[in-house]
């Protein structure tokens, strides 16, 4: 259907771009979030919007998609001024935005999620109109076919919240297909997907592009951006500071433009620790329907990486070691004593800290202060003589963590929700470091974190290991593992497939081991 | 956020203003406040006439009546709390649910406020409780009418406003006790709760007619029960086969009295009860003692019986019920 409207397909890049912004400004109270952003987007091309958290990327997208209005400047779509016309007008003009939460309505069906917007736009947002159910189904079917999802009725009427994440992602793209979007904006589309799912997603997006749509990615994953190719747009402090061919740009180059300083490339793990005594020893650990016969050991000061596909059992293994999913058989010894994994509080008492993957859902209390979030794991130790928590000691502990981890915050009594993603993650890590654990388990430590924050988090991990703490990183960010670990363990189908020394290992070998090519 | 607060505040002020209607005049030496179950029901509107009348006829005493806008024991307690803090001289209370008021009434007495109650002979914390009559006798009185009407044989049932309304339960029990002397009378599905809703009483009565097709007798509890029962009987065309008696008000029940769906009602005049509560309060404040045989100067209360109550207080009983049927309902303007 895209072809019929735009017969030129990929050659659509003509004199007038599909979308153009002219010196967009946005003020939020006293904050100047956008400082004159001008950009041109042509049909049939890929764009990657790069930048640290808080650089103005989200604001720019919200203005383009009509969710917010700009303070000054213009948005032109196919030469028409669309400034401040709202989401319906933006949709109508062919701009489809897939936010990180996918902008799906979880309780509505697949067909409705795909096809409703079309009719909503047609009636320009007025709600008192009959719904054309057969047209809804037809356009949903056509779009589902394009993205390679089933088109039978049972699937069409399925509630979106019952689908796995990767399928939901595709449903969101199908909506863009159905609305014949000229520009699809994707906000960190691959954050929670496994490599294989990412590959499939990219295939579908390429098809979209080949039919003439422009795709604008907002992403932290430079490697992925390079794989896809296209124009790299780097933002810093509300300005578009750099434009480049992303496939040719180096991490160092982009990192420099994003942060304004040189970032360390290559391995953070420079020194190999001398043979220290073993800290954790796992033998024959099995959990039904998750993993079997896991043997592993971590020495003091050693960093072990665990990776694999989402269903490889890696997540469950991490949960077991945190006391969240007690294993049926096997033995776990920590520092010479058997470790009781039956409940998380026992594990914590033994000196194991677990930083979960989903920091918002499982870790942080967003409305509480930074200080409260940091000290909640060590309230025992902060007690004064009368068994009450000593305020001054708590303040001191929180302040120390703030400085150690370079958390950027007004003060320790600000709510965690006021921090950027990278700083939030550091607060969570800081909470567990305050407890001075013997073993630190990090589950996806840099998911949704910008490169600047990533670097700081990596340095924290290294310095803790240097002090003799054992670290276990469970992650599917392969460069992250290669940069930080001594050993990397690849899991497949619930078993350990291979163990690698990280030093000198290349990403391609590791990736093949993970996906099993 | 600020806006919301203002809105809440505004509605709060409005509701407080509603409660405060009819404040006592300031020059009276003694202030007696009557607290009823709910304001505005015809019953308590009539009671207010008696309350107001007493204040007008007697110098040096201010009388007024208050009550919650809906029948809710907690709201009634809150109103009494307010009155305690206003330091009135005496409270005359018709409790919604006597047991929930024990605490607040003890506090009132502790503050030196005289506590007079009505329709609450199980209440511990009261100084004088007024009963228009003995509740068991009143229930027996209905049962007597029903039994006579049914020829002393057949099935009958009883209704209550709610199982928490003690007097209603006592009437039902009194009726049951009276009926025990007639072996041919069979009580079925006793104490149906109408929740003071005529429609609910109607639905229940219909179900009872279906479950017990031969039923003949109905004893109503709340004043609204006979209306609902009467409608069910009328729709079933059973005016002549059934005997419906219970508490009721003449005007509200008149249509069913005329059609014969309701055979007879009895009530005590709430105006007199309101008036007599204030007599008792006045006498109590003056330190006068009430004894059996006293004449309070109001019809039905010319020869009261005084007995010890469950607590420190005494119970004062009259014989003040009024029987009404198709022949005389029009004598009463309420």
């Amino acid at each position, binding site marked *: 259907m895209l072809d019929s409207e735009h017969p030129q397909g990929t050659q659509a890049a003509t004199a007038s771009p599909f979308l153009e912004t002219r010196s967009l400004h946005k003020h939020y109270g006293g904050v100047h979030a956008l400082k004159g952003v001008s950009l041109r987007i042509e049909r049939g091309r890929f764009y990657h919007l790069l930048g640290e958290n808080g650089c103005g990327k989200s604001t720019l997208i919200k203005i383009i998609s009509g969710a917010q209005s700009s303070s000054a400047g213009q948005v032109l779509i196919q030469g028409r001024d669309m400034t401040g016309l709202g989401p319906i007008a933006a949709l109508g003009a062919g701009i489809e935005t897939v936010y990180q939460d996918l902008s799906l309505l979880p309780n509505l069906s697949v067909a409705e999620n795909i096809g409703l917007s079309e009719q909503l736009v047609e009636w320009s947002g007025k709600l008192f109109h*009959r*719904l054309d159910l057969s047209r809804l189904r037809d356009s949903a079917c056509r779009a589902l076919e394009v993205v390679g999802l089933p088109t039978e009725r049972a699937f069409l009427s399925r509630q979106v919240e019952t689908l796995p994440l990767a399928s939901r992602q595709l449903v969101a793209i199908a909506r863009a297909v159905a609305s014949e979007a000229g520009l699809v904006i994707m906000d960190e589309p691959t954050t929670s997907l496994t490599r294989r799912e990412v590959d499939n997603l990219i295939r579908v997006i390429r098809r979209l592009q080949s039919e003439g749509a422009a795709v604008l990615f907002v992403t932290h994953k430079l490697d992925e951006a390079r794989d896809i190719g296209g124009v790299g747009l780097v933002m810093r402090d509300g300005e578009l500071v750099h434009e480049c061919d992303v496939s040719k740009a180096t991490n160092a180059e982009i990192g420099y433009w994003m942060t304004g300083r040189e970032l360390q490339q290559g391995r953070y793990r420079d020194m190999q620790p001398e043979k220290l005594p073993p800290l954790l020893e796992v033998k024959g650990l099995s959990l039904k329907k998750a993993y079997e016969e896991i043997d592993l050991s971590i020495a003091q000061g050693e960093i072990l990486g665990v990776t694999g596909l989402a269903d490889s059992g890696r997540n469950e293994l991490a949960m077991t070691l945190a006391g969240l999913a007690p294993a049926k058989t096997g033995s776990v010894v920590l520092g010479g004593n058997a470790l009781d994994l039956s409940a998380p509080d026992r594990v914590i008492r033994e000196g194991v800290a677990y930083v979960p993957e989903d920091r918002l859902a499982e870790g942080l209390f967003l409305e509480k202060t930074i200080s409260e979030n940091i000290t909640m794991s060590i309230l025992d130790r902060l007690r004064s003589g009368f068994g009450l928590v000593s305020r001054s000691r708590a303040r001191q502990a929180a302040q120390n963590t703030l400085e150690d981890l370079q958390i950027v915050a007004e003060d320790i009594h600000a709510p965690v929700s006021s921090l950027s993603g990278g700083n939030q993650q550091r607060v969570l890590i800081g909470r567990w470091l305050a407890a001075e654990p013997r073993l630190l388990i990090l589950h996806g430590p840099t998911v949704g974190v910008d490169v600047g924050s990533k670097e700081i988090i990596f340095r924290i991990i290294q310095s803790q290991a240097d002090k003799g703490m054992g670290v276990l990183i469970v992650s599917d960010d392969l460069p992250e593992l290669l940069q930080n670990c001594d050993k990397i363990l690849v899991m497949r189908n619930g078993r350990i497939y291979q163990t690698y020394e990280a030093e000198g290992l290349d990403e391609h070998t590791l990736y093949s081991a993970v996906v099993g090519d | 956020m600020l806006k919301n607060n203002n809105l809440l505040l505004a509605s709060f002020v409005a509701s407080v203003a509603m409660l405060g209607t009819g404040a006592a005049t300031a020059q009276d030496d003694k202030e007696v406040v009557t607290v009823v179950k709910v304001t505005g*029901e*015809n019953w308590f509107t009539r009671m207010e006439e008696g309350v107001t009348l007493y204040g007008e006829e007697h110098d040096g005493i201010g009388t007024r009546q208050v009550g919650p806008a809906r029948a809710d024991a907690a709201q009634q307690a809150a109103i009494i709390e307010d009155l305690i803090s206003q330091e009135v001289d005496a409270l005359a209370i018709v409790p919604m649910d006597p047991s929930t008021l024990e605490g607040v009434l003890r506090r009132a007495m502790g503050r030196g406020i005289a506590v007079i109650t009505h329709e609450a002979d199980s209440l511990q914390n009261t100084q004088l409780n007024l009963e228009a009559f003995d509740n068991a006798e009143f229930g027996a009185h209905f049962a007597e009418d029903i039994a006579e009407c049914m020829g002393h044989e057949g099935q009958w049932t009883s209704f209550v406003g709610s199982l928490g309304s003690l007097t209603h339960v006592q009437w039902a029990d009194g009726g049951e006790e009276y009926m025990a002397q007639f072996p041919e009378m069979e009580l079925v599905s006793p104490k149906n709760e109408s929740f003071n809703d005529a*429609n609910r009483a109607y639905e229940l009565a219909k179900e009872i*007619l279906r479950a017990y097709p031969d039923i003949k007798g109905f004893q109503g509890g709340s004043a609204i029960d006979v209306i609902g029962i009467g409608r069910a009987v009328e729709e079933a065309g059973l005016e002549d086969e059934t005997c419906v008696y219970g508490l009721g008000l003449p005007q509200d029940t008149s249509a069913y009295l005329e059609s014969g769906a309701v055979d007879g009602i009895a009530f005590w005049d709430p105006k007199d009860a309101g008036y007599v509560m204030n007599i008792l309060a006045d006498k109590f404040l003056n330190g006068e003692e009430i004894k059996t045989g006293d004449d309070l100067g109001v019809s039905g209360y010319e020869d009261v019986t005084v007995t010890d109550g469950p607590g420190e207080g005494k119970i004062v009983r009259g014989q003040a019920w009024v029987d009404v049927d198709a022949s005389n309902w029009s004598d009463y303007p309420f």
Partner: protein
Amino acid sequence: MITIESSHNNLDGVAQKVLRNFWVWSAHHPAIFPLFLIVVTCLSVGAINADFWQLSNLFDILRASVVRGLFALGVLVVLASGGLDVSFTAIAAFVMYTLTLFVVNVVPDLGIVPIFGIAGIMGAGLGALNGLLVSYLRAPALIVTIGTQYMLRGFLLTFIGTALFMNIPSAMDAFGRLNIITATAARGSEIGLPVYFLILILAATVTWWMLKHTLIGRAIFAVGGKPDVAERLGYRVKSVRVFVFAYAGLLAGVAGVIHVTANRLANPFDLAGTELAVIAAVVLGGARITGGMGSVVGTMLGVVLITLVSNVLILVGIPSAWQTAILGAFILFAGLFFSQLDRLAMR
């Protein structure tokens, strides 16, 4: 989560699969739950007392479901949009009493159609007030509607009147006595299915059609599922919120008039305190208190179930105090059932 140990033989495996398929199926058809309880209640009451199986009894249950059913349709729409309404009984009481008083004293000859029209408009107006407060002050719906409930009731009893009156307008009285068909009950009396039952059927059909076949219907569910996403996708969230409360108010106004015509008297104290039973009926029918779910069919079945339990237990001689307890058990059971379904559907 089915916590059954892994199968030791094939039979167990098959049983497990059947059970699992049943759960999945019921997750998509939550109305099966009230239907199941209705059947169980009917069969057990009917087995104990054969008088249950009378056409007149069915008529009585349907008749008693009308007012509650209209309320429930309003609550369903509000719940689906992620709101909560407890003011509908106060709206109904206000409309029925004020309007009846007005008609009796000013236009005693007004026909039943304009009466219903005015009731609907008054109800919708009062409901829209709720909606405006909820969407523009961003106040929680529960608090707003508790507030308006008390204010309306207080206003009604303080300024309009408190006396019960029996002489309702002739048009209302006549409409209340109009039957579609009548059945003969035991003892030969006639029990009819009143015409106002058709109003419930009409309202249910309109609500069903609206939820299923119009943009506003889908928008209601969209807003109930994720209001922020809905807003981003261009749904007018505020309009939707105002609309649902106005719709609930409209149905409440109509229900109020029906209550008067059926009861043949206007008592301003009526209907108070029935809110929770109505919300329970809607939730029994599969709607989520947290919004975004619910169906008209389920709601109607929930209403019938509640009416059934509160009316027919007399037939089996269950004391009145126990009737409430049984109702409570059903609601608790429903809560557990649906939370179990939720967890299963996510797997």
